[in-house]
């Protein structure tokens, strides 16, 4: 049996409300909230980044797995906001958590699905017998261009997964991936903000790949949507994952546990991984969980998990997503938000 032996998540405490952003740009707050089904989003502290978020999430994963960090053989962090363009985020994380030095480390990039790709590779290393444990993380502090639609959703957060073969809490039954050259959303080298192709990001990009991967995964597993207790899809806004679920045959109830985007925003590489963590926080032994991520450019990774008895033992060992989502929130105004997001041109 191969699967998740420990998981952890982290959301910063700062928030900004959709109506505050709307007021700044003279937009219709209510229309946006209705249309995108977004209320507020997380904002990283000035002292937080993909590295610090990954460290806190991975700390939770190690606490849940109760393993010796020295036994982790690989650390892969997927993000589109790695603090360094050259120097993997994982190199800082391993020294913070006592992992290594005998460890593989690399940074992954695939827009919003870099995290799920990292999870897949970590799983593969363990499945192939290469190593006892591997850590895959999805974390981001992505930028939304000022005044752009994506400014309402681009947020910060992440989740970490330790894959192993002993005391598995969520067995990975099936995986797949579906990729094509679809230029829906991208960021050129040296550019500060990403760009996107408007409505082209919908059907030809997000839906094509999520449904493409999702349908294939269902076929591969010979399961049907009603067999699953929970489902989570990449959440760029509140609406898209609900529509993806509908197209694949899932109900709103099945999506509920992982549908945290209206209050979290889109944590990009952290999106479906954090949604998955929210599900694992409350899931029960025997539950089947369906997960399909999406990263622009474009591609989707699919996973089917089956929860074991172990999940009961590990859930309470580290902070939970809903606790971090609901408690200790610090609201920012637009000026404070721009300072936190380095959107102000400083005299450097």
């Amino acid at each position, binding site marked *: 049996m191969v699967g998740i032996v420990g998981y952890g998540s982290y959301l910063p405490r*700062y928030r900004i409300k959709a109506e505050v952003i709307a007021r700044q740009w003279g937009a219709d707050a209510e229309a946006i909230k209705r249309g995108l089904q977004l209320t507020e989003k997380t904002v990283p*502290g000035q*002292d*937080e980044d993909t590295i*610090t978020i990954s460290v*806190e999430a991975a700390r939770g994963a190690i606490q849940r797995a109760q393993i010796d960090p020295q036994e982790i053989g690989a650390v892969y962090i997927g993000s589109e906001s790695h603090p*360094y363009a050259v120097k993997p985020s994982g190199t800082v994380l391993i020294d*913070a958590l006592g992992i290594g030095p005998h460890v593989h480390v690399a940074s992954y990039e695939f827009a919003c699905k870099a995290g799920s790709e990292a999870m897949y590779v970590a799983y593969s290393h363990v499945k192939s017998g290469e190593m006892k444990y591997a850590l895959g993380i999805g974390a981001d502090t992505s930028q939304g261009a000022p005044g752009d639609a994506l400014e309402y959703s681009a947020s910060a957060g992440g989740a970490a997964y330790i894959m192993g073969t002993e005391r598995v809490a969520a067995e990975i039954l099936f995986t797949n991936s579906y990729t094509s050259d679809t230029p829906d959303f991208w960021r050129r080298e040296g550019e500060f903000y990403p760009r996107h192709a408007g409505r082209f990001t919908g059907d030809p990009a997000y839906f094509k790949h999520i449904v493409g991967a999702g349908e294939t995964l269902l076929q591969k597993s010979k399961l049907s949507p009603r067999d699953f207790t929970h489902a989570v899809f990449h959440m760029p806004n509140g609406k898209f994952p609900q529509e993806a679920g509908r197209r694949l045959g899932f109900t709103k109830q099945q999506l509920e546990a992982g549908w945290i985007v209206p209050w979290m925003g889109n944590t990009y590489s952290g999106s479906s991984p954090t949604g998955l963590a929210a599900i694992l926080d409350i899931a029960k032994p025997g539950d089947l969980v369906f997960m399909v991520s999406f990263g622009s450019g474009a591609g989707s990774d699919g996973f089917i998990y089956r929860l074991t008895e172990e999940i009961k033992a590990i859930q309470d060992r580290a902070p939970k997503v809903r606790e971090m989502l609901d408690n200790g929130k610090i609201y920012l105004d637009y000026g404070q938000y721009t300072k936190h997001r380095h959107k102000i041109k400083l005299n450097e």
Partner: protein
Amino acid sequence: MISPRYAREIPHRYQLLAARCSSCGSIAFPPRRVCRKCQGQKFEAAKLSSEGTILTFTVIRVGADRFSKQTPYAVAIVELNDGVKITTQIADADVDTLQIGQKVRLVFRKIQEDGKAGILCYGYKAVLV
């Protein structure tokens, strides 16, 4: 921030690695060659507790250039549960409501940057529990 100087402090700043004097048991943070208390020169590795109490604090409103965009921020002397005292920022706090005696725990944060193109420097900060 010069890389070699930064790299040497990583084990202490990231994992709170300290040294316990083999003769008198007092903990040195960061580790040192000679025990302050008994002048002993033999030590064992030790890890600091990551929980403590605020002994005193201030709110920096005028900082050195590299911290000037983060003001106001709180800096405190925290006594950790093992008796070791450290100087550290209090993150995510309402600086106007801090009090001596509040309980904190240490978290991993970015402490400073060496300008736009230099290295990123991480370490411990405290948050209220």
